[in-house]
């Protein structure tokens, strides 16, 4: 059974159909991509998956359980973590504090424990710090841990977001345009990082991306959508040669993004 199964997903905003009858699946341990021209509804799909939007119809099964109509934080707790298209760091907090947020759903001390500083609370705090530092080390930002998040370079801020998502100990990581705004070298590092996350940590990855080079290099399965509906699916080669895909991209205004 696939880790993530989406079937007949539908979403509309005040009459406008944003996603229609979308079905796809992500297998355990793979890297999958969701692509499509601007405004095709990719981020909307992410928002449905992570519980930020409530779809009108369809099914989303994650790890064998339906996550439809679940609150975003419960979905994260179930093992699906995401990054945002526009950076959404906690700007005025330190890098380490940012990453610690990921551990929130894996720990449980409440107000009483915090006030009394019980033994279990102190152990938990130590665990939160060590896991967060591991995650930072994984993305190569451990030295920067005490800096304010918004003083970091753009590319580093992205990596903080990744570390933060990794700290939630996800089974599936959703990356929303991870390469946006990165230069050539940074993109190369990014590809290594994506592969390392899958290979070293065993985390399944689903990404949305405009950069076709990157998509083609890392993804084992690609789903192409346009106007909220699936137009093609398959490996990089299959998709690249699909006439519907070419038409969708060339017919769209930002065809220059492609290939």
């Amino acid at each position, binding site marked *: 059974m696939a880790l993530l199964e989406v079937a007949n997903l539908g979403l509309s905003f005040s009459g406008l159909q944003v996603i229609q009858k979308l079905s796809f699946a992500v297998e355990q341990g793979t890297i999958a991509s969701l692509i499509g021209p601007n405004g095709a509804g990719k981020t909307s799909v992410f928002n449905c998956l992570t519980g930020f939007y409530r779809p009108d119809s369809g099914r989303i099964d994650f790890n064998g359980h339906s996550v439809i109509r679940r609150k975003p934080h419960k979905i994260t707790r179930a093992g699906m973590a995401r990054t945002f298209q526009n950076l*959404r760091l906690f700007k005025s907090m330190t890098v380490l504090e940012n990453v610690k947020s990921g551990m929130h759903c894996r720990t449980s001390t409440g*107000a009483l424990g915090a006030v009394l500083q019980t033994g279990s609370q102190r152990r938990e705090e130590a665990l939160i710090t060590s896991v967060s530092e591991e995650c930072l080390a994984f993305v190569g930002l451990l030295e920067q841990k005490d800096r304010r998040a918004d003083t970091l370079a753009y590319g580093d801020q992205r990596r903080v977001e990744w570390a933060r998502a990794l700290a939630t100990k996800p089974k599936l990581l959703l990356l929303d345009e991870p390469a946006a705004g990165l230069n050539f070298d940074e993109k190369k590092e990014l590809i290594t990082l994506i592969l390392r996350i899958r290979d070293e940590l065993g985390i399944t990855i689903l990404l949305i991306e405009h950069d076709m080079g990157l998509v083609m290099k890392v993804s084992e399965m690609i789903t192409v959508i346009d106007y909220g509906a699936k137009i093609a699916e398959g490996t990089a080669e299959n998709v690249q040669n699909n006439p519907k895909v070419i038409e969708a991209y060339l017919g769209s205004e930002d065809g220059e993004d492609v290939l």
Partner: protein
Amino acid sequence: MAGSSRLTSVSDWLRPQQNRMIVLLVLAGVAMLIPLVVNNYVLEVLTNAWFYTILCLGLNIVVGYAGLLDLGYAAFFAVGAYTTGILTSKFGVNFWLTIPVAVSCSMLAGLIIGGPTLRLRSDYLAIVTLGFGEIVRIIARNLDITGGASGLIGIDRPSIFGLELSRGIHFYYVFLLLAILACFVSYRLQNSRLGRAWQYVREDEDAAEAMGIGRVAVKLYAYVIGAMFGGVAGCFFAVKMTAISPETFTFSQSVLILLGVVLGGMGKIPGVIIGAFALVLFPEVFRGLGSMRMLIFGIVMLVIMLYRPEGIWPQKQREM
């Protein structure tokens, strides 16, 4: 500039935990010994300042930590005060036994108002809390058990180990101890998993939610703990005043407490204490300006929001 370099050196010196503890101990010692050298009037004023410190620290959890604007905080304070007042004066319950009841009632009030409304956008929440504050006051005004518009009178003074708490000095120490406790609890909470969760939610609700933090639950926590502070303060307020009436729990009272939180600096414990003292000392020290008090506070609040939104107390130093 000489001034700023001195300030930096002071804050450098303050950085190690040890030095900060020294300062705190000295301050606590001074606060403990003050009653020996001042008269009743000054004592009464300082007692009031500690009382507002507790309230402001409680509201600070809601406004400063969780970033929720609560314009009806006096309601929680009222619930605590009335619960104790009614139980002691109408049912003859021992004061100390009323505290857990009063605190539970105010926490329950926090749950009732917070539960359904914390989903709302922040500006709606402000109005809802305002309305809730007024509703509590009007209920207190209209019920028989709360003594109607003239309130409850003749609330008994409590005793502890055979000592009746009746003199100003007794209440000074009661409120000082409560304020220290409030600081301690606030401090521990601020640096905990929950404290960080409040900060995450305040900075970016969606990102916090995506990180697996249930924003409604976290906000509700802030609300209920804030209400608890108000409830405790209310219990002791009732026995100190021996009489309570709905006029104490108006919208202006809520605004006053909010002012204390904003003046010193939202979310910062020393700032909030300074804010609370400023509230209480200002009308006593500048008596001639008494009727302009709220105008001056309003202007100061405006200036603070525009030029120094972090409040009077300096921002925590971070390595850049």
